[in-house]
């Protein structure tokens, strides 16, 4: 990936005032929606839009990496009742801060993408769930939505067509779990954010029991580009199996942390050394967490030649997640880092399923023991045992998200953990 310096950003392009509707429209904004609604030759029906998005293979940017168009195609046939699109802007995974850049710099791109998605799936209402802590971005979005309504880009008869859809902003209340798609639905319904049992999947029974699709903000923001330039254009960007632009959120011990829009499949070392301009204070790289705190940590030695796409990361023993990369230098205390991560998951477990409710607290308490020098090597084996008791045994993936960091951090940095522990000969069995 040598041409990243010449890459032209499409999600957050460097255009001043793009968050104003007139500027956005001047730069080709809403052309895609207009075409979808009025260009009968290219877009004869909503299904053709779904087909194009499916073809483009926009893999969900929220972490699971599922083909967005394919997800759209799961919606049942129209039956006259309400259908919903829920847009996930909860962005609660630690290390992730990409969607807020879209809210800040290019809100209409997302609104246009969501409107196209609504048209493609015959959606009657769009709900945008925004992280509660994003107070100022929520205000910004409120302004953008009201401008879009005023300009006839939302509401009744959008752009003079017979397509109508409403968009409602909903602010979260600071719960990590509400970023999980089904508990997001519960939260939208005004209930406690408990993830739902699947099946039935949201496409069958989502919000208020009606067909619902849930997409990430960044995923939907890629839709106007696909409509304007075609699926082939999208697929030509970045890694073959995971195409398109990615908002890399780089944080940690680098000289220039921030959100960078670049093609997928960027080499990790390029991102650290060139994009983020190297390690802070010339320290040595120790490890990265590639896609938000729940993705398994990768030590520096595994990062040569590693690229940021779902397949390459899986091969290296981690995940793409949200592409919120946390970079850690040689001074980082891995044990304490893991303790902090576990503390987070303990605090955020909703408490519905037994293994997660009890397991997250147990993990944190043992790690606290280890951090304070009270731990034994048996505790490390116990930690690994507890993670195997949690993984895959719960309704949602939070138990996995809490267990993976523990499992992989210990197995990949075991010597550092053992250095903090007293030896023990008692088996954990």
């Amino acid at each position, binding site marked *: 990936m040598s041409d990243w310096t010449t890459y032209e950003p499409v999600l957050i392009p460097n255009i001043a005032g793009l968050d104003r509707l007139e500027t956005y429209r001047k730069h080709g904004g809403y052309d895609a929606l207009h075409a979808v609604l009025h260009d009968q030759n290219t877009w004869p029906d909503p299904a053709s839009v779904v087909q194009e998005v499916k073809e483009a293979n926009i893999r969900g940017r929220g972490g699971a990496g599922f083909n967005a168009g394919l997800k759209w195609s799961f919606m049942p046939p129209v039956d006259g009742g309400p259908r919903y699109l829920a847009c996930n802007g909860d962005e609660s995974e630690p290390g992730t801060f990409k969607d807020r850049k879209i809210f800040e710099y290019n809100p209409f791109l997302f609104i246009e993408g969501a409107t196209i998605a609504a048209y493609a799936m015959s959606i009657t209402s769009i709900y945008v769930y925004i992280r509660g802590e994003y107070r100022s971005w929520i205000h910004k979005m409120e302004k953008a939505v009201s401008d879009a309504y005023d300009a006839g880009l939302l509401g009744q008869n959008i752009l003079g067509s017979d397509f109508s859809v409403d968009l409602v902003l909903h602010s979260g209340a600071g719960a990590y779990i509400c970023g999980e798609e089904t508990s997001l639905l519960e939260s939208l319904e005004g209930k406690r954010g408990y993830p739902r*049992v699947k099946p039935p999947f949201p496409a069958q029974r989502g919000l208020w029991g009606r067909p619902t699709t849930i997409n990430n903000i960044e995923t939907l923001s890629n839709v106007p580009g696909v409509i304007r330039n075609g699926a082939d254009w999208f697929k030509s960007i970045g890694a073959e199996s995971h195409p398109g632009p990615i908002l890399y959120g780089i944080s940690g011990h680098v000289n220039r942390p921030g959100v960078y829009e670049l093609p997928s499949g960027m080499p990790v070392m390029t991102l650290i050394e060139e994009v983020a301009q190297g390690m802070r204070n010339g320290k040595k790289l120790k490890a990265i967490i590639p896609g938000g705190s729940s993705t398994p940590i990768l030590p520096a030695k595994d990062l040569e030649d590693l690229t940021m796409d779902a397949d390459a990361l899986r091969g290296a023993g981690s995940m793409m997640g949200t592409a919120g990369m946390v970079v850690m230098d040689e001074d980082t205390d891995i044990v304490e880092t893991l303790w902090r991560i576990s503390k987070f998951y303990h*605090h955020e477990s909703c408490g519905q399923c*037994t*293994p997660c409710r*009890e397991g*997250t*607290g147990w993990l944190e308490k*043992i790690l606290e023991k280890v951090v304070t020098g009270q731990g034994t090597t048996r505790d490390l084996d116990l930690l690994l045992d507890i993670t195997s008791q949690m993984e*895959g045994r719960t309704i949602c993936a939070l138990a996995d998200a809490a267990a993976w960091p523990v499992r992989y951090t210990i197995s990949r940095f075991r010597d550092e953990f053992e250095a903090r522990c007293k030896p023990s000969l008692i088996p954990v069995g």
Partner: protein
Amino acid sequence: MAEIVIDGIPYSFEGKPKLLDFILSKNKDVPFFCYHPSMSAPANCRMCMVKVGQYVKNRETGDYELDDQGERRIRWFPKLQTSCNMDMMDDMIVHTHETDDLVKRAHKDTLEMILINHPLDCPICDQAGECPLQIQTYKYGPEGSRFEVKKQHKPKHVQLGPRVTLDAERCINCTRCTRFTDEISQSHQLTITRRGDKNHPTTAPGTVFDDPYSMNTIDLCPVGALTSTDFRFKARVWEMNQTPGLDITNGKGVNVDLWTRDNVVLRITPRHNPHVNEYWMTDKGRDAIHLYNEQRLSTPAIRLHPNDSSLVMTSWDNAYQTTQEIVESTDTKQILVLGSPYASVEENGAWMQFSESILKQSPSYTTHIEKESGDDFLLVDDQAPNTYGCELLGLKKRTKAAFKKAVAEAKVILSLHDDYIERGWLSEEEIKGKTWIYFGTNHTQMAKAATLTIPITCAVEHTASYVNVDQRIQRTYPAKETKYTNRRLDLEMSEGRLDRFGTKFDHWVNEDHKVDCKPLWEIVGDLSLLWGHTLSYRHGRDVLDALASNIPALEGVTYQAMDDQRGILLTSSETQEASS
């Protein structure tokens, strides 16, 4: 017909049953906490895990694919599945803990997790002995705990409402209680608050858990988190006898279990009857323990002089002879005999025979229907348990006005159960100068105003039947001994460890709790002898048999049939539909 293989044994099934339901119906055991057959399955306890797979079929030919050994190839689900919310499918293969070590391990793991923050205070917990968590831990749990850090502390002895106390530390967050108020009683009074291992059920701020069905959550709670404020710390479950019975506080005829120790009813819990009350009962019905234990009439009592302020104890013989004297010295036209919908079919039946053969008249009764007081669940308008029974026997129903007129015209009144003074139908002034012989169970205002009181057994001291508002006849069993009955001799009575092994030197064996009363049919039998009649009834069964051969609606009704069919519907379903 679809097929499923569970632990190597094939079963066929129809429709789309849930896997756990099906496995339990085959008398196999799968541990669970949050699942309840009459509520939704949230699958949150993660206890009922099983390994599930399906035979692979060739898509084109529809034949089963075979492996190298010629066995059908199985595609296993990648993770263990909770059976409570799993729809059964054709060609499914299920392995429970009996055949799969991974499932066994999952049960052990989940129990270890549940127990790490559980206080393990079984020795002082009311639930111990009937605790699903305790039972399943013994059966499926780990041998010890590896939890060596500090437990999470949560609120204790929280008074959620007037009748329910919460110990949040014992709570395993199964949400059965919150689902009960959402789905069954629909009061929506309980919810889970806080997150993760700090969460527990609670009411909204400023509200109390005063649902008229609130105590069902105590029975539902699979641990000792929700306990009865009244019953808390009163008894260990293994000290008590459990006797089936009926709720007589209204006309629904809810099936209950009576829990007694030393002849005191300590608590009442619902007994499952799919035709009447499913798994539930009202809080009011549980309050009946006070009716059975407290303020009981014991030993006949007589007012020696009309102006005496109180009655004095007398012997049974004297009570009988006084009754005879009063009746014989009065013109039968001036005698009024009152039956009661609070009394059983047998009591009213024997009462009617006595009245017709000796007093030459049919008894009458008054109903206790309070319009609009019921809901469409278990509370009904009829406050008495046997109104239909009275109707069936042919007792004359009197309105308030007709009743007052009859009382005003009578000189001698023989009445059963009903407290007309408390009800406001009569004042003490109105019965001055009349001779009132009261056959009752408790020290009611009627008993205080009567001339002669004769104590009769209550619903928990005899075998008798009641007809509920849906015309279903159901029976009770004796749960409490009287002075004249004996657990060891009456085979219908249950006998607990303390009954068998306790001695009079024990704290637990106390003659004082036995009431000096007799079943009404015995009393009228004894009385009729004085007139030379022989209404010889030694047991409710004798009365019922006599009634069954005389009254067409009761044909074929026996205690055995009531036991077998969980009560007998006296009208055919067609006539019932027509009447509704």
